[in-house]
């Protein structure tokens, strides 16, 4: 997303279904909320170690919570832009 500020929970739910997640649980939202708060404060995505500390969840649990993992799953649902090169 070029405009992560225009992200909505509905946006996350639609992408989750695309990824095979019928429903976003409290754990999913905890992860998504942390990712968004971190990005809004720091202007970048957190490292996994920061994500683990920030959510209080084990890294394996976070990774397993999203069919496409953290980078391609959780971050995408949270509307975080990946660092870009020239397209």
């Amino acid at each position: 997303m070029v405009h992560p500020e225009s992200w909505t929970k509905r946006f996350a739910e639609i992408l989750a279904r695309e990824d095979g997640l019928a429903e976003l649980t409290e754990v999913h939202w905890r992860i998504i909320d942390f990712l968004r708060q971190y990005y809004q404060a720091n202007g970048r995505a957190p490292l996994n170690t920061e994500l683990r500390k920030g959510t209080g969840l084990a890294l394996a649990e976070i990774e397993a919570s999203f069919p496409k993992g953290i980078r391609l799953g959780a971050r995408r649902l949270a509307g975080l832009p990946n660092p870009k090169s020239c397209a």
Partner: protein
Amino acid sequence: MKKITLTVNGVLRSIQVEDDDRRVLLDLLRENLGLPGTKQSCDRKGQCGACTVLVNNRAVRSCLTRLRDLDGAEVVSIEGLGTPEKPHPIQEAYVLTGAIQCGFCTPGMIMATKALLDQDPHPDTKLIKETLQRNLCRCTGYTKILQAVKLAAELLSGQTTLEAVRPDPRDGLIGASLPRPNALALACGTAKFAGDMQMEGLLHLAAVRSPHAHALIRSIDYSTARAMPGVVGVMTAQDIKGSNRLQDDQPLLCDKKVHVMGDAVALVVAETKDQALAATKAVLVEHEPLPIVATTDQALTDGCIRVHEQIPNLCYEHPQIKGDAASAFGNSDEVVEAEFSTQLIHQAPLEPEAAFAYLETSEDEDEPKLVVVGRSINIHHHLMVLQKALGWDNMRYEQPFIGGQFGIKMDITAEGLAAAAALHFKRPVRYVCSLAEAMWITPKRHPFTMKVRLGARRDGKLTAYAIDFTVNNGAYMSVGRAIVNRSLYMLSGSYSIPAVEAFGRLVYTNDAWGGAARGAGPPQVNFALESAMELMAQRLGIDPLEFRLINSLRPGESISTGQVIDEWPYAGCLEAIRPHYERARRESSGSKKGRYRRGVGIAGGSFGIGRGGADRSNVAVELMPDGGLTVYGSISDPGEGNDAMLTQIAAHLMRIPPEKVLLVTRDTERTPDSSSASGSRVTYMSGGAMVNAIEQLKAAMAEISAQGYDDMIAAGKPTRYLGTRIQDATLLEPKTGQGAPFESRVHGAQMAEVEVDTETGNVRVVKMTAAVDAGTVINPVIVEGQIEGGMDMGVGMALREEYVHGRTKDWVSIHFPTMKTSFESTVILLQTPRKKGTLGAVGVSEFVLLPTAAAVITAIQDATGGARICELPATPARVLASLARKRAG
């Protein structure tokens, strides 16, 4: 063995020297005495002058000076001349004149200047050029270095004082040529580059590279190498835990196949660099050679072997259709047709590839953090690339000072190998490439072949343009698709052309791979367009400047992408050039006969600001307890002067002195992602994001009438704000090439004055004049320096430079620009504030390269009356051939 005694920077040193000791003074300074201000670039061939120091008051190349010859010598390195706290007047002169861009050449240049001024306190331009002609600089075009030497002479002789020449920030910060904040560290040799890094337990890396351009890897036997003295270990692809890919088609260490000569297949780490290099020779790699895809024509033939099995050699193509070009050509009074080609070029930053990596442990973290120090200009993106490639998430990318880059560091290679080795062997690893190796492993400017048709009415109005271009992508994708796209974004240059039909294709070969290079595509297609414009002006008998004015795009008209433009100050640039053009035409009119002939050529260009399409930059600011402002953003500054731009804007908006602004820009942990220092986007995008952050801070302060930090804390207000700048531009529609890729552009025109030796074909550029409108100018000297350096690079593209993979191996074979090839420059800065610019400003650095080559080639034709040269570079042989074609009728 003998003991020698010498003085280094006033300190007496005794050294044991073997009879066959190969060490040179450079080794002593950098490795033994911890004085890395003295640089090395040219593989110790004495070509670059970056290692110049004083020995007994004479300037010498420390890379060629044997230690055993220095008994009793008095040596002064850059560190001994002055310090940032107490700089020498020569160092001050370089800072004040804007003679320091990347700063890698600066220590050697300053030491050579010291020796010159000791000998002759008042050298003229000719003597300065003769004395410093073997000290190379890629950034400046030497203009400001000449000014620095002259200012230094005046300072040392008392003709002027620092107080008299130093700008006063109280006179205003926008439009002020304040010294760059980093310049003094670069002038005094205290700025650390990647190759300067040291650490306890440091290992050295050397890579085993393929001698084949295309081959399968059958086996790798490193049993002998592993047992050699000093060797800590050998790594191959199977030792890398992640994807082992720098991009989809590019392995970090090749596993099954090599795609270009110089691909890395294994790496050795050892206690010393010599030990690592020796062991690479003992690694036995069994290759099965494959047919080499040498040219794009060969690559596109039916049945040609693929460079990458899963991807066709024709790896990307894109059309552009605006209006009905066929009908428009049919209704044209005149149509010119021509074929043009541009060459493979090395960006040639003076600093060779270097990287450093180590593991950092802390009690807070379960696993160590891999810290990678390298020359990337897109550190958050490359952190992500390395995390995937190595399968290691806990990582930080740090950027030291960068010795020039010109787009080359939109890709990383050395960083990946150093990081892989540090992770695998759990020791700090430094990888400093030789110059030849650095050339093998870095991307180049893509060569283009272009077939062009341009139509016009008899009254001079353009009717249609068609271009079919093929880009040799070399072995890896890099930003190849963007090169085609960017060429289409800026295809119609500065002009209003009602109908356009274009087709671009990108083709894999086993040649050196193309990547970002100052301008990245538009310099190549603009050469074709501006050349066709010249041919059409000749056909119609219209003055070239008038012809360009007739066709300059006007607000309300559209470029080739169909984007309707609302600001386009190109015509003003042509008008600014006009008096210089008329003067040059008069002066050259009497030099059209005889052996040496003079000619004049003009060309224009317009360049989009940003990556093209949607673009975003994040920058944070923090109000500090002392009233200062800290700016956080991954904003690389490999020499463009972004440090000054950010500092001057921030100080201006916050109404604080520049020295109260602190920039934090060099690591991924402390910075928001400001994205790349490419597409001339830094001032516009990252400068804009900083302005947005400052506006948020000032709004928050205004809410509570805060006077400063204490009031904000007392009110419980945040002192840090994250700003963003988003460019809502679009990519091109795939079938028509239509879209709105940029919000704003920089415009300009250039004039070349040349002298041609009609017997040898040699061309001397006498003078370049540039009129550039980049909106508000934040720091005039820095903008001038970018334009002067860009024109020097453009002249190299026009006349000399061509990289041949495997054959071009040093600064001589690359035909690096020198003071001898440098020329007089006049820069005219126009300032039409851009509606969406940062305080009205856009970027300028890449645009400069667009008009230069066409202007120089036109000037050659004007001088000789020969046929137009359509292949770059215009070597003496091609100049003579054009004269012969003319004579043959």
